[in-house]
């Protein structure tokens, strides 16, 4: 059986920087199962329409598997159009966040799709392929899929159990991606001096999940966050605050790094993990410590760190491994940060989001403005660059949180142009504000999906106090620290609107939706959080 995996184009405005880790793992799994596999990394190549058509005709594929995040919607629609033109009829599968967050909607919006893999695909995809290889197209008892009946109606099955023995996963099929042609030349990332000097960077996803409940975030159904409910024969996914945190063992990770160094001569690794600190806290502080210690004893420590001298591009490029990851302001501590630096960490991304305690509480971030500031200082003191991500336009954003942000930026030396709060499908706020979101797109879900991209642009506004024009203007003035103009507008706003609205989020979004389905049967292995 011949399988073609396609990685759709994502973040067109930047050069391709990341091998799609999920597809690379799935391609390797299929390879090991003995299938004939090809990968078309459209995101890496950014090909013309004519070239896409040539690739699709390069063989008689039995299966085409596409996957990605919600913002690949446009390109996936384009690919499906091209696939529809083929003189043969491959079985088309879609996986990843794009379909996991809204399975029925996507099946409706993408009529060429035959089947969707919901959540984790490591076990589901091989089962689907095995059936196809045996000419069996009965999907009723395959967990973790959405499929179409002869009338075109979509049916969502029970969820697939998550895989716990993660170390049984093979290493990703990096050899099926254009590393030398595309990815290594784009190794540099502008997050730190060492990142900027990287020559051969690859990424690793070493854990799944995050213990926190940020209401704008989504975990792709990979972290115990997803349940499926049934009521009146109507099944749908519901995302909750439940978490099933999983991680590779430090041995698996460090062995993988050594393999990457030997096989691909890499000098930099970006850890894709949602939140490295969550895993560390969940293991009582042992997980990251062991990874760092094992990296050092495997001889991966960059020499300038070992010799306690600054990074010198003339001597140090390509020596040892530098790396980056994600942290969390209330979960990090000086000891672990120090050890991470010793093991080569150059920068850590912090979703600080805001410097206002009301806003932080309503996001569900589990931090305070003070912790944000302390984390910046602690990280810098340990020789690691903290990347201070900021977002504006939260439901309870108001002038007070805008002033707080500018004050903190000045105090801490933060240089940033914030993202706009965006209700990506799968996040709690997507469901809380669904009506309002769709209203902004004339009730056209397709139009909303097509508009989604980088959150540096305004799409659907979920702020209760500001509209898109105000948010864009305020961001511009914040970046310039033009407090005078903001204050002037603050006065005008008060005359126009009176008091601001501060919605309180206890757990409304998913809980309401869960209640909606609760009368039905819960088709899930996890504990019912309301029933607890």
């Amino acid at each position, binding site marked *: 059986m011949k399988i073609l995996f396609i990685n759709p184009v994502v973040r067109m405005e930047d050069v391709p920087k990341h091998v799609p880790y999920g597809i690379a793992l799935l391609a390797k799994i299929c390879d090991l199962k003995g299938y004939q596999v090809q*990968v078309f990394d459209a995101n890496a190549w950014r090909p013309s329409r004519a070239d896409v058509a040539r*690739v699709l005709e390069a063989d008689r594929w039995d299966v085409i598997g596409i996957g990605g995040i919600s913002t690949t919607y446009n390109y996936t629609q384009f690919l499906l159009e091209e696939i529809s033109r083929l003189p043969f009829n491959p079985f088309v599968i879609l996986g990843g966040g794009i379909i996991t967050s809204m399975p029925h909607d996507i099946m409706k919006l993408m009529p060429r799709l035959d089947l969707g893999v919901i959540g984790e695909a490591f076990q589901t995809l091989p089962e689907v392929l095995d059936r196809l290889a045996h000419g069996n197209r009965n999907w009723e008892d395959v967990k973790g899929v959405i499929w179409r009946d002869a009338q075109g109606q979509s049916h969502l099955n029970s969820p697939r159990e998550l895989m716990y023995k993660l170390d049984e996963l093979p290493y990703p099929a990096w050899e*099926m991606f254009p590393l030398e042609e595309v990815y290594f030349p784009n190794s540099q990332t502008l997050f730190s001096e060492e990142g900027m000097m990287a020559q051969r960077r690859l990424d690793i996803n070493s854990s799944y999940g995050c213990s926190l409940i940020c209401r704008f975030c989504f975990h792709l159904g990979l972290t115990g966050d997803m349940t499926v409910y049934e009521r009146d024969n109507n099944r749908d996914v519901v995302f909750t605050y439940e978490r099933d945190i999983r991680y590779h063992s430090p041995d698996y990770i460090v062995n993988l790094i050594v393999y990457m160094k030997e096989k691909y001569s890499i000098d930099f690794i970006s850890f894709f993990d949602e939140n490295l600190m969550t895993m560390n806290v969940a293991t009582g502080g042992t997980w990251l410590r062991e990874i760092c210690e094992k990296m050092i004893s495997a001889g991966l420590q960059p020499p300038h760190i070992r010799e306690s001298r600054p990074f010198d591009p003339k001597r140090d490029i390509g020596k040892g491994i530098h790396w980056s990851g994600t942290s969390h302001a209330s979960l990090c501590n000086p000891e672990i940060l120090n050890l991470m630096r010793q093991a080569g960490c150059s920068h850590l991304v912090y979703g600080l989001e805001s410097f206002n305690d009301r806003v932080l509480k309503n996001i569900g971030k589990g931090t305070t403005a003070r912790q944000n500031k302390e984390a910046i200082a602690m990280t810098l003191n340990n020789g690691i660059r903290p990347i201070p991500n900021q977002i504006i336009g939260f439901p309870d954003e108001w002038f007070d949180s805008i002033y707080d942000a500018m004050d903190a930026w000045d105090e801490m030396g933060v240089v940033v142009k914030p993202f706009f709060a965006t209700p990506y499908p799968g996040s709690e706020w997507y469901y809380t504000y669904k009506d309002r979101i769709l209203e902004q797109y004339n009730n056209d879900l397709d139009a909303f999906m097509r508009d989604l991209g980088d959150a540096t642009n305004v799409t659907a506004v979920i702020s209760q106090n500001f509209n898109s024009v105000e948010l864009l203007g305020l961001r511009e003035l914040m970046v310039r620290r033009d407090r005078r103009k903001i204050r002037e507008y603050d006065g005008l706003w008060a005359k126009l609107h009176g008091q601001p609205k501060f919605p309180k989020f206890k757990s409304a979004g998913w809980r309401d939706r869960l209640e909606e389905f609760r009368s039905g049967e819960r088709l899930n292995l996890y504990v019912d959080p309301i029933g607890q």
Partner: protein
Amino acid sequence: MSFLKGNYKLAQEVAPSQEEIPADKLLEQEYYKTALSKLGGSIAFIMKEKTFLWKGDEEDAAAKDAPS
């Protein structure tokens, strides 16, 4: 260079087609890219292909003449 990488050899490789972009077009594209990254204030430009060329009142006149 091949668009497809996998675990078996295809009957025919699919390489990126050599787009025949004339030298002046290449330079033009480079110019658009660089100028776009600096867009703002005095850095402004016109995309030639997108330019709407005003041809006097021809169309208006033609519209008037057309039978309704």
